């Protein structure tokens, strides 16, 4: 056993059973303390406040009213439009994403590393910024097809990146075995390789579906009547709160369905990994000259549409408009207010996430699982829904909190709590509990033992999660529009209000600032989803869009 190629496999031969590896308490103290559970339950309660309040409102309206809203032609139309929109975008992302991933991992196209980076970059383009950049050049763009195009261009990396990773991770031996068992190259691909990458692609596709369903900025700018725009319109335009609430609940149900499906697929994908096999590079498929040129042209076209057009458009806007009427002080103010309220949101999110993250990393009891699942509610709650619910809640129950900084920060915390929990959980899981136990034996109480060991070691991860919440909150649009205190302008709302009145030039600096903000989470996300993610355990929902 002296040679190096024997070392790699032996320790990894056991199948992966749990979703997050690391140090779970298996022996000894397998029950969490009551205090920790109580704090966790509090977090879960906060996370579902918006949902619960919506349900309460809908129930309060009475079944007749609900049925009446549901049976309206408008409702059916909204459902059909949303479903068609989600279907078109998701299907296109799957086709583009899988093809691109295959090209850059399994064929002989040149500069495969560069293509990988380019395919990840659209993640740094907030969807409504892309929509704005296109609109500024082509003001006639509007409607279903235009909105779908924008969504596809900003979302396909959610499929392409994990699929590329899966292509690389897929054991080349499996494909070879299929070949020697009598399958030709194409059939070996469909029967042996494709089943291995499909879970990754499907999970990515379901994320795309979820984000498309929750998308507000793009559909609003392109005037497509999906759920989010209809809900926002009925909140803005009428006092028909019941119909907004009912539609919001239907939206949440659909989103929850997608989240559930995504979890299932991703769980299966991880269980499928039989053994970490000795990593051998795939022999790239030699494309013929014509095919190769077509493939490269396709990739170039994709990148030009997803990155080139918006970036050139923004630069053009900056250069062209001599009368930018750009006020640096206004941009500064917007950035500071964005940052201020988002920081408050991030602090709330980190505080709420701590008990849940620790519980989820260390214990596997039923109550812990319940708390964790409920705390992830924000993942299935579109910004429009959280905004609407908190508007109702503050107006109906806590009028003094209506349109206050705190309510907006709370909305951010609820929406992005999953990111913070994910970060806390994986940071905690990476620290062996034996450290804390040792600190206990050296004479420290439970809290001090935690503080002097695990807390120190997990602080960077926990803070990174908080930073992620901060940056993501600064981009948030629909909930901000509904909940912001009068006079508070964030980067997102400034861009929005200028774009709405077709003041495209003056909006450009805000768009660039938003891209800069989005770059950090996008970078983290592409690291977590990308082909080098082997062994690292980021899941899309710990970072997210």
């Amino acid at each position, binding site marked *: 056993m002296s040679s190096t190629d024997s070392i790699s496999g032996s320790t990894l031969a056991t199948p992966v059973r749990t979703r997050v590896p690391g140090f779970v308490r298996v022996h000894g103290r397998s029950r969490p303390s009551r205090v920790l559970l109580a704090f966790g339950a509090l977090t879960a309660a906060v996370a579902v406040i918006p949902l619960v309040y919506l349900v309460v409102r809908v129930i309060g309206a009475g079944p007749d009213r609900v049925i009446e809203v549901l049976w309206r032609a408008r409702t059916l139309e909204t459902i059909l439009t949303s479903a068609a929109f989600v279907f078109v975008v998701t299907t296109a992302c799957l086709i583009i994403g899988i093809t691109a991933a295959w090209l850059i991992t399994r064929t002989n196209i040149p500069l495969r590393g560069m293509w990988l980076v380019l395919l990840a970059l659209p993640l740094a383009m907030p969807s409504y910024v892309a929509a704005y950049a296109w609109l500024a050049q082509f003001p006639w763009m509007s409607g279903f097809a235009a909105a779908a195009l924008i969504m596809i261009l900003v979302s396909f990396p959610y499929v392409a990146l994990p699929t590329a990773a899966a292509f690389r991770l897929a054991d080349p*031996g499996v494909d*070879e075995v299929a070949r020697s068992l009598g399958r030709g190259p194409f059939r070996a691909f469909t029967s042996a390789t494709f089943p291995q990458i499909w879970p990754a692609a499907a999970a990515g596709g379901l994320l795309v579906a979820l984000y498309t369903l929750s998308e507000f900025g793009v559909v609003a700018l392109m005037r497509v009547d999906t759920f989010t725009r209809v809900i926002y319109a009925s909140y803005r335009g009428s006092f028909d709160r019941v119909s907004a609430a009912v539609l919001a609940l239907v939206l949440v149900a659909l989103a929850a369905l997608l989240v559930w499906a995504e979890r299932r697929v991703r769980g299966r994908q991880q269980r499928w990994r039989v053994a970490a096999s000795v990593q051998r590079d795939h022999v790239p498929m030699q494309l013929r000259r014509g095919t190769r040129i077509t493939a490269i042209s396709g990739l170039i076209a994709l990148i030009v549409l997803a990155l080139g057009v918006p970036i050139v458009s923004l630069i053009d806007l900056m250069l062209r408009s001599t009368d930018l009427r750009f006020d640096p002080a206004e941009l500064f103010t917007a950035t500071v207010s964005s940052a201020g309220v988002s920081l408050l949101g991030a602090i709330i999110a980190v505080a709420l996430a701590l008990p849940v993250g620790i519980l989820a990393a260390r214990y596997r009891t039923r109550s812990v699982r319940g708390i964790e699942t409920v705390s992830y509610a924000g993942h299935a709650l579109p910004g429009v829904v959280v905004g609407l619910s908190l508007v109702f809640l503050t107006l109906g129950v806590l009028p003094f909190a209506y349109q206050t900084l705190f309510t907006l920060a709370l909305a951010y915390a609820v929406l992005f709590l999953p990111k913070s929990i994910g970060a806390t959980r994986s940071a905690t899981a990476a620290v062996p509990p034996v450290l804390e136990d040792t600190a206990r034996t050296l004479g420290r109480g439970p809290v001090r033992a935690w503080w002097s060991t695990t807390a120190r070691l997990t602080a960077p991860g926990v803070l990174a999660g908080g930073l992620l919440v901060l940056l993501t909150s600064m981009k948030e649009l629909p909930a901000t529009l509904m909940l912001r205190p009068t006079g508070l302008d964030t980067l997102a709302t400034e861009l929005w209000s200028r774009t709405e009145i077709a003041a495209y030039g003056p909006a450009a600096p805000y768009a660039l600032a938003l891209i800069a903000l989005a770059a950090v989470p996008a970078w983290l996300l592409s690291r977590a989803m990308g082909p080098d993610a082997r062994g690292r355990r980021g899941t899309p929902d710990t970072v997210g869009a």
Partner: protein
Amino acid sequence: MTDVDVRGLRAGYPGVEVLTGIDLHVPAGALAAVLGESGSGKTTLLRVLAGFIRPTSGTVSFGDREVCGPGVFVPPEKRQVGIVPQEGALFPHLDVRGNIAFGLPRGAQSRQRVDEVLELVGLTGLADSRPQELSGGQQQRVALARALAPQPQVVLLDEPFTALDAGLRARLRSDVRDVLSQVGATAILVTHDQEEALSMADIVAVMRDGRLVQTGAPHEIYGSPVDLSVARFIGDVVEMPVLEELSDGRVRCGLGDLSISQTITETDGDGSKDVVVLRPEQFTLSTVGATSNGVAVSPASTANIGRVQATRYHGHDAMVTVRISDGSDIDVRVTGVAPPPVGEQVAIAVTGSARRFRSTPPHHV
């Protein structure tokens, strides 16, 4: 029954020639082990045989069917070769039955065949398990069953046991050996583990830097290595410099006079090497003073008297390091029954003869 014949095979990857001329003949039904360190090219050879790599020159024939040669290249799916990859490479999305039936046509007969090979590899009853539920050893058994199911002419095994722990490995080796001889397939096993090669194979081919340096039965390789590197690679050695060449085909070294079975002159050295090589089990020890136990202790020399420096005890045997009078250490393998304690004075006797390896600088050839 199909033999495997490889002639003048050269292959590699763009820019690197990995195999630089391989000739190998494996008789029908035999198990050949290609033994080499990692990077020696053994896996490349296996991949050429399977059809995953197109060789640059040379021929490969299975029986009277040429699968690659000038103008001939049979793709993997048409070669009727079964492969057992390093870690099984089971299809993760299929259960055991689905894995094994993968290479079979659909139908009732296939179902029966799956049950047959499952029984053959000793996994009856696990047909509906998923690969993830199996232990490493079971996964390898399924991989073997999957390879054997379509009744291939040739079976290729790519270090199939390395990922397993020691106890499991030994059992699986002998089981695989039995299964292969039962089905009568010609098999080629690639490994870096000399013990595995010696214990499993009918023929061992030692590979180094892309060529086969020695091919033969296990005892030939072990007993008559063609050069010093092979001798060292294939097992433990005791090397002693030659001090003086004696007239009767014997040499004098630190341990006294030894008879030489063969002298091998290598031309790749700088001319400074001249050693005799023995295996640790060629020595026997006796306690000094108890000379009447039949072991010949030459009264004329005290060169073979030494003191035990260290003992590595393995249970069934023990390796005893003895420091002899000239200060060099000699490893001696003794049975595990009663190894001599450290510090004990012992006499060393030699069974059989030694091999002598000399080197001459290349320009002397």
